């Protein structure tokens, strides 16, 4: 998409003052919801997203049950007031696709074989949206799964890289997403760096792709530390007091 907006200035600063390999501010809160088995609230730049986990519980209706493992159902949903022009409530093609790729990514790390015939529901509600909701949503969902005590091989994490004004940068903001040249959301299992979600739209050379994915994975590791910190803040055992 061509535009007159300069996304990077002469000093290499982006519109919001970030350097090319800098993330937006991220805040993660574990367990803000009472009813859910696990939950997480994340603020990532202007994104405000809640994730809630229910399960494992009996998979219903029966025909969705798998005899050997649990089914993982992530549901990504945008609040009607989370975007500039009101969105009609309910799923659309975009959110259905995002729900599918997030479900598949999370299913990889969950030890589903421990829960035959069960289902694990993950609800991701975007309350305020500003570019990169799927990465923020998956990141929050992973923390909510951990909060729910669901056994996982790893705590997955997501981050995007992209290309603006011909340069590869980390974590696109709103204008960068609208007027940039490419967007590359990536989710990984951080212990092994296995890629569990990968999408791209725009235009990248092979060299740029190599650079972008490396940047995204690096960014994901930074976010991964924030996830762990938030979980430890809730679950770390207080030091034993001498009697």
């Amino acid at each position: 998409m061509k535009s007159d907006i300069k996304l990077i200035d002469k000093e290499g600063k982006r519109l919001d003052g970030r350097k090319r390999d800098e993330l937006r501010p991220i805040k993660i809160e574990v367990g803000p919801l009472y009813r859910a088995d696990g939950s997480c609230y994340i603020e990532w730049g202007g994104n405000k997203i809640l994730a809630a986990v229910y399960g494992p519980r009996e998979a219903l209706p029966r025909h969705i049950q798998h005899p050997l493992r649990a089914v993982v159902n992530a549901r990504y949903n945008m609040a009607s007031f989370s975007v500039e022009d009101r969105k009609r409530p309910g799923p659309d093609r975009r959110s259905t696709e995002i729900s599918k790729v997030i479900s598949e990514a999370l299913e990889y790390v969950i030890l589903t074989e421990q829960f035959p015939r069960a289902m694990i529901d993950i609800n991701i509600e975007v309350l305020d949206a500003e570019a990169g909701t799927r990465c923020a949503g998956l990141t929050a969902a992973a923390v909510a799964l951990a909060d729910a005590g669901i056994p996982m091989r790893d705590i997955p994490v997501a981050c995007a890289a992209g290309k603006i004004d011909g340069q590869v940068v980390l974590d696109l903001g709103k204008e960068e997403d609208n007027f940039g040249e490419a967007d590359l959301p990536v989710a990984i299992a951080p212990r092994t760096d296995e890629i569990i979600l990968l999408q791209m739209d725009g235009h990248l050379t092979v060299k740029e792709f190599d650079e972008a994915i490396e940047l995204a994975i690096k960014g994901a590791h930074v976010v991964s530390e924030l996830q762990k910190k938030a979980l430890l803040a809730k679950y770390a055992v207080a030091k034993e007091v001498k009697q």
Partner: protein
Amino acid sequence: MNSTLISSIKKDYLNKLAEQKKRIDGRAFDEYRKISIETNIVRKAEGSARVKIGNTQVLAGVKMDVGEPYSDSPESGVLTTSAELIPMASPDFEAGPPREDAIELARVVDRGIRESEVIDLDKLCIEPGEKVWIVFVDIHVLDYDGNLFDASSLAALAALSTAMVPAERFEMGKDYPLPIKEPPISCTFVKFNKAIVVDPCLDEETIAEARLTVATDEEGNIRAMQKGLSGSFTLDEVKKVIKASIDNGARIRKILEDAVGRDHGKKN
């Protein structure tokens, strides 16, 4: 909202407590849980508010658009209220189009706003018969521990009270606050085992025989009512509920005013 199961031992316990004038969380019959209101939390919305009543959490957002008026009211703006009981809020809520519970909830909230003329829809006319403001109030239930009626009405009122008309986006001059008037406040009661309690938590709502919501205004007049569930109230009980609604309503109105800035609605 009542597909939730409850064990009979818990049901017996709640009923026994009621006979001793006690409640499961230690409240008096006429006592609300802690209410907190945060406004303007969604940047993309024209107005927004998160209301917590105990563990129940509701987020309301206001979006505005320019559109055509209804042909029978060519000089009035349009108000649309919808509610979603998203599966995040309870293990018993399912995804999909709103069922009757969500529709009843949205309509009760809508009536509270519309019939009390909190928003003066005539002021939202841009060109008679051609262009008016359309106000969308969307209720997002985030955490369900009973009493969605009061939490949702309060969230909708708080979101409207802080909403800015997005005139700039439609090239009609500067943004300005949505003109609103003093709102009526809804109070919900449920009845079980001859006890009537205000602000039911989920356990109480699950065993409730009958429910009554009463909205009262500043002057202590009744502005809206809704009875629900298959039980009944005597006339005497209804009168008592109305009296208690006026008392609680005054207290909640104060919390709302403090949250949205006391004079916001009066300026316009």
